[in-house]
């Protein structure tokens, strides 16, 4: 399966899971919102150009927004993590050329610790920005802090489950690109 086709299918699946599974779960608490959809942006291939990365993230966020009827909220957060993603990968990637040897960020391609750092930092940034935009309209400071922490914990748990369930096979490609 080509990478483009794989990502298009992933796009649809992530939106459907987020809208019709995670947002249909009865809320545990006002602070806990189970977000996992942005994992799509984290899983996009290494070789996506930065402009394309941001466009795809914008489109992806906006699609979710139109389902949840808050146009712009998730799109803004997705564009932000798509913009920061290349910087973070440049810092975290351990050996020269891992981003050319493998197709997309994962535990096998980046190593366990760098991948975990990558996921935690982007999840935190995504949730901080999302809750900040909500907090600007209503809520108090306790709501802001509590929601960031609870939502991030929930997101990380869901990401771990997703990583364990869908073991993405990363083929080692040739060094000579």
């Amino acid at each position: 399966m080509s990478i483009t086709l794989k990502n298009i299918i992933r796009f649809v699946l992530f939106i459907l899971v987020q809208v019709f599974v995670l947002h249909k779960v009865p809320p545990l608490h006002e602070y806990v919102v189970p977000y996992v959809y942005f994992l799509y942006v984290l899983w996009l291939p290494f070789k996506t150009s930065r402009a394309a990365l941001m466009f795809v993230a914008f489109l992806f966020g906006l699609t979710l927004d139109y389902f949840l009827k808050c146009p712009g909220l998730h799109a803004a957060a997705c564009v932000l993590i798509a913009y920061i993603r290349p910087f973070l990968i440049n810092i975290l990637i351990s050996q020269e050329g891992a981003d050319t040897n493998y197709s997309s960020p994962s535990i096998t391609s980046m190593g366990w610790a760098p991948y975990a750092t990558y996921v935690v930092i982007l999840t935190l940034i995504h949730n901080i920005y999302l809750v900040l935009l909500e907090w600007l309209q209503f809520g108090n400071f306790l709501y802001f802090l509590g929601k960031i922490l609870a939502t991030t914990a929930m997101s990380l748990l869901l990401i771990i489950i997703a990583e364990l369930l869908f073991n993405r096979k990363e083929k080692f490609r040739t060094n000579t690109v």
Partner: protein
Amino acid sequence: MRNIFLFIRRYSNFLLFLVLQIIALSFLFRFNKYHEAVFNGFSSEVTGRVSQKYNSVEYYFQLKKTNDALVHENLELRKMLKDNYESYDTTKKVVVDSIKVDSILKYQKYQYYEAKVVGSFITTQTNYFMLHRGAKQGVHADMGVIGPQGIVGRVVNVSDNFSTVMSVLNRQFKVDAKLKKSGDRGRVEWDGASPQYIFLKNIPKSAPIAKGDSVLTSDLSSIFPPNIMIGTVAEIVNDPSSNFYTLKLKTATNFSSVQYVNVVENLQLDERKALEEAAQKNQ
């Protein structure tokens, strides 16, 4: 000039980032202010159709609750029938109303339409419903939406075949309410915490209140008919620094299972609005 082009080329990614952020944020704040979504018609048609597909499955799981709610509503309506009441006083003269039903049509204030709920969320801070009835079927913005058990929300956006309803469980939703017992009026809002509880504010402390009292829509509301159930008092929050109570209400409607609603059109709304605008101009 050359330097400008070089600058744009060098920082093209950052500029693209800024442009996309500005677009996204303008969508967000514009929608929160006027509830006009960009690409509203198209997006509502698409998301509406997808939600409808999902709902055709979900609907079966809610059938029992929907049925219960409808049976209760029918029972309440049946209790109001004139035939249930018979006076002992046989000397009372029965006057037959000679006015034809058609002739009072011009006095009709509220018109009801039925609609199917195809999408609903209660997990976010700004929850919306999606109804499978739109502009082509007579729905327009600012119509009230009531379910079998009580009020549900207000129509904010319509496309050709679908409409978006701001739920009572939305931090921007406000409705004028009154206590059934004493008639004291206040404002109903949601604090974003639990989808089962909403708050009634500005009830004077002189009002007699007990737990379990009913709260209804008031006669002042321009979009809801009066005396529609909103909820029952679950807790009385006493703030010693103010002369008003804040009442915690249990919502009458179960927002996670509502499947059929009525959309209410106020046929005299235009006249009322014109009068209110004229009064504002005179000030």
